[in-house]
């Protein structure tokens, strides 16, 4: 009956209706948005939101700077106008406020920080893509105090933080699965960097090359879109000029190629020393046993003291870079400001100020490049070298050598200057600098931090795993007087590599490994004479329920066995079950994907 009814209904459809239906099916089939296309849409939205967040931070920072110095000029000019005592007071008070914000914030939101991260790199690489809102705001407010009061630290840190936070929030609100959420946070980070440097290509490469470790199209595509959109919005709101426009360079003689190609070698060898200097500052400050607010105030006071000598040490170095590229500097002035900036940046970094060191690193590289160019000009005046050109190339080379990301460095230097004539030299020098730096230094600027976070996250995840959840309660056991025939039969019937030997109270006595006995399994003469007690390994490692997952993994590394017996405790050694390496790995992997699936459904 039903079939007939359906048939009649189909027959009543007019040809036009049929065509419309076909069209509808075609549209649904061909124009339905796939997950990839949806990701692109989200990436574009993240670009807009990231740019708005970044611009808001810029405005807030400008306002606070005005409050602190009474000037709406750039940081260096403002500080130059301040009397000497104010040059010290402003960054000191700024550091104190930044430290108090961090200190109180950390105390208030300690429980939240344990569950989520505030670090965008961690959220992308090892985390769940969730960035703590309150803790991020604390960090950003702290950064706001430091940056607006002249601390020598990059603004890109909080810009990326806020942009990533926005992306993380979108992912959480939309209840996206973890991999998508992580990708979205990566888009947010790229958007933040694109806003900070007006460099969308380099921003996407920064995230892909340094954080994700891949430039695969699947991941790079949304990053590019987010960066470009963010850069457009940022340009719309605050102008579209490149940060360090190049005055345009020409080679006066082809021989100049020779010294130009050596910039990378020079800076590549200096980069490891720079990275170690930053780490040294971090270590030194960690030894000072005072509260965070005082530590940051001390950092601010040191920068302020340096500012008495030269106010150009203040800020992230952006103004200095512009001045370095467009004004004539004497070599001793360049050397002095490099040294002062180096100390100021290391102090800020070491004291724990929230912010980035990317822009200060750009300056150090550019400064050394300019010095190198001045040396070339002095040694070979016939080449008529332009030190600023060496400065641009030095900037890119130093970034390549310190971050370990030459591709990003080439594009970043190009986008910052928008001078294509520099690109061939940048390409050579960035790659050379990267390799030269790698001879002495394997831990690059962000890689080390990521490594630390990855290890910490892994340890934390392991600590959170409940061993009991992974225990299989049906271990293969035999009594200690089981004959060799029983042992052989048990191995034949099961696919396990070990049989656990227990006493009457089910206490673990040892284990027999298939590997140890397999060559004897076909010897009938052993069947009745040899028993389990003769061949069991009494020292076979076991895991106790009272131990953590870390301990279990240590035991696995010693035993080289896929499966270990689990006992109630190491004293009574009552066998409860067994645990396998595969189960642990699947659990660690599945915990994330599993959560993701739940969220999806």
């Amino acid at each position, binding site marked *: 009956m039903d079939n007939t009814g359906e048939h009649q209904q189909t027959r009543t459809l007019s040809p036009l209706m049929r065509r419309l239906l076909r069209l509808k099916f075609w549209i649904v089939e061909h124009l339905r948005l796939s997950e990839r296309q949806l990701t692109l849409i989200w990436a574009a939205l993240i670009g807009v939101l990231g740019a708005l967040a970044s611009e808001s931070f810029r405005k807030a920072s400008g306002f606070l700077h005005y409050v602190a110095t009474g000037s709406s000029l750039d940081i260096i000019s403002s500080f130059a106008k301040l009397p000497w005592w104010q040059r010290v007071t402003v960054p000191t008070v700024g550091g104190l406020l930044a430290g108090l914000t961090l200190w109180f914030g950390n105390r208030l939101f300690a429980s939240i920080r344990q569950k989520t991260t505030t670090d965008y790199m961690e959220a992308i690489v090892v985390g769940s893509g969730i960035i703590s809102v309150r803790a991020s705001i604390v960090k950003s407010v702290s950064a706001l105090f430091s940056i607006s009061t002249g601390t020598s630290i990059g603004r890109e840190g909080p810009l990326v933080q806020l942009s990533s936070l926005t992306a993380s929030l979108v992912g959480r609100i939309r209840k996206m699965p973890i991999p998508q959420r992580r990708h979205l946070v990566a888009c947010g980070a790229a958007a933040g960097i694109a806003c900070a440097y007006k460099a969308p290509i380099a921003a996407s490469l920064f995230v892909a090359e340094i954080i994700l470790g891949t430039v695969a199209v699947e991941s790079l595509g949304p990053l590019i879109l987010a960066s470009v959109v963010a850069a457009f919005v940022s340009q719309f709101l605050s102008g579209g000029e490149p940060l360090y426009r190049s005055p345009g360079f020409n080679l006066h003689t082809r021989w100049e190629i020779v010294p130009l190609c050596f910039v990378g070698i020079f800076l590549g060898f200096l980069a490891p020393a720079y990275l170690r200097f930053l780490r040294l500052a971090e270590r030194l400050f960690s030894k000072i046993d005072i509260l965070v607010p005082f530590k940051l105030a001390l950092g601010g006071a040191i920068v302020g003291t340096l500012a008495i000598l030269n106010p150009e040490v203040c800020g992230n170095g952006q103004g200095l870079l512009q001045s370095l590229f467009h004004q004539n500097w004497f070599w001793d002035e360049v050397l002095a400001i490099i040294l002062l900036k180096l100390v100021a940046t290391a102090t800020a970094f070491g004291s724990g100020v929230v912010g980035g060191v990317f822009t200060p690193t750009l300056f150090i590289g550019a400064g050394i490049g300019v010095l190198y160019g001045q040396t070339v000009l002095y040694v070979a005046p016939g080449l008529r070298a332009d030190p600023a050109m060496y400065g641009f190339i030095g900037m890119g080379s130093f970034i390549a050598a310190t971050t370990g990301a030459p591709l990003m460095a080439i594009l970043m230097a190009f986008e910052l200057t928008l001078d294509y004539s520099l690109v061939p030299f940048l390409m050579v020098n960035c790659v050379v600098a990267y390799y030269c730096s790698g001879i002495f230094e394997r831990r690059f600027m962000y890689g080390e931090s990521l490594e630390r976070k990855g290890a910490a996250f892994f340890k934390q995840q392991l600590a959170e795993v409940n061993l009991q959840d992974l225990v299989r309660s049906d271990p293969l056991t035999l009594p*200690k*007087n089981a004959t060799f025939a029983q042992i052989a039969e048990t191995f034949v019937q099961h696919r396990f590599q070990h049989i656990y030997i227990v006493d009457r109270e089910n206490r673990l006595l040892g284990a027999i490994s298939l590997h*140890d*006995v397999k*060559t*004897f399994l076909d*010897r009938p*003469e*052993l069947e009745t*004479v*040899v*028993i389990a*007690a*003769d*061949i069991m*390994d*009494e*020292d076979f490692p076991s895991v106790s329920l009272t131990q953590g997952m870390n301990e279990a993994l240590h035991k696995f590394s010693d035993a080289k066995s896929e499966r270990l017996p689990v006992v109630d405790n190491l004293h009574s050694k009552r066998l409860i079950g067994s645990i396998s390496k595969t189960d642990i790995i699947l659990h660690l992997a599945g915990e994330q994907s599993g959560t993701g699936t739940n969220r999806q459904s």
Partner: protein
Amino acid sequence: MSSRNAVEQQLRAAIFIRNLDAISEHEAISKMLGALQGHPQVGNLQELSAAVFDRQHTDPPLFPRGIAFPHARTNAVSSLVMVIATCSRPILFGEVQVRLIFLIGIPKRAGAEYLELISYLARQVRGETVVDQLVKAEDISSFLAGFAEGA
């Protein structure tokens, strides 16, 4: 072939006791353990004794035709030690009249070596005539000759 050679080498190094005189399983084993007093490979004779008796208690290892293998895998010995005893008057091990005893001490790490030895001995003493010949052996050389005939 190489593992067989190794076993034969271990047999040649064994302590041989002809016509062990004991009225019980415990006395027989104790006397054989006593022969290991001062043996360079035995680090702790007391520990070895305890391990051997413990193993006997769990499940006395016996071959057909009156052959006993009291043994222990213990770190009280640094390498394999063996005492071979013939009994002109059978000794009762549980309910079995034992005529030939192989007392073996083997380190814990030497599991494969242990299985190889037991497997070899079990194969060699399968025949009744071989066992008779081994029981009649006067020293380790004639004992080994009897073994060779069994093979």
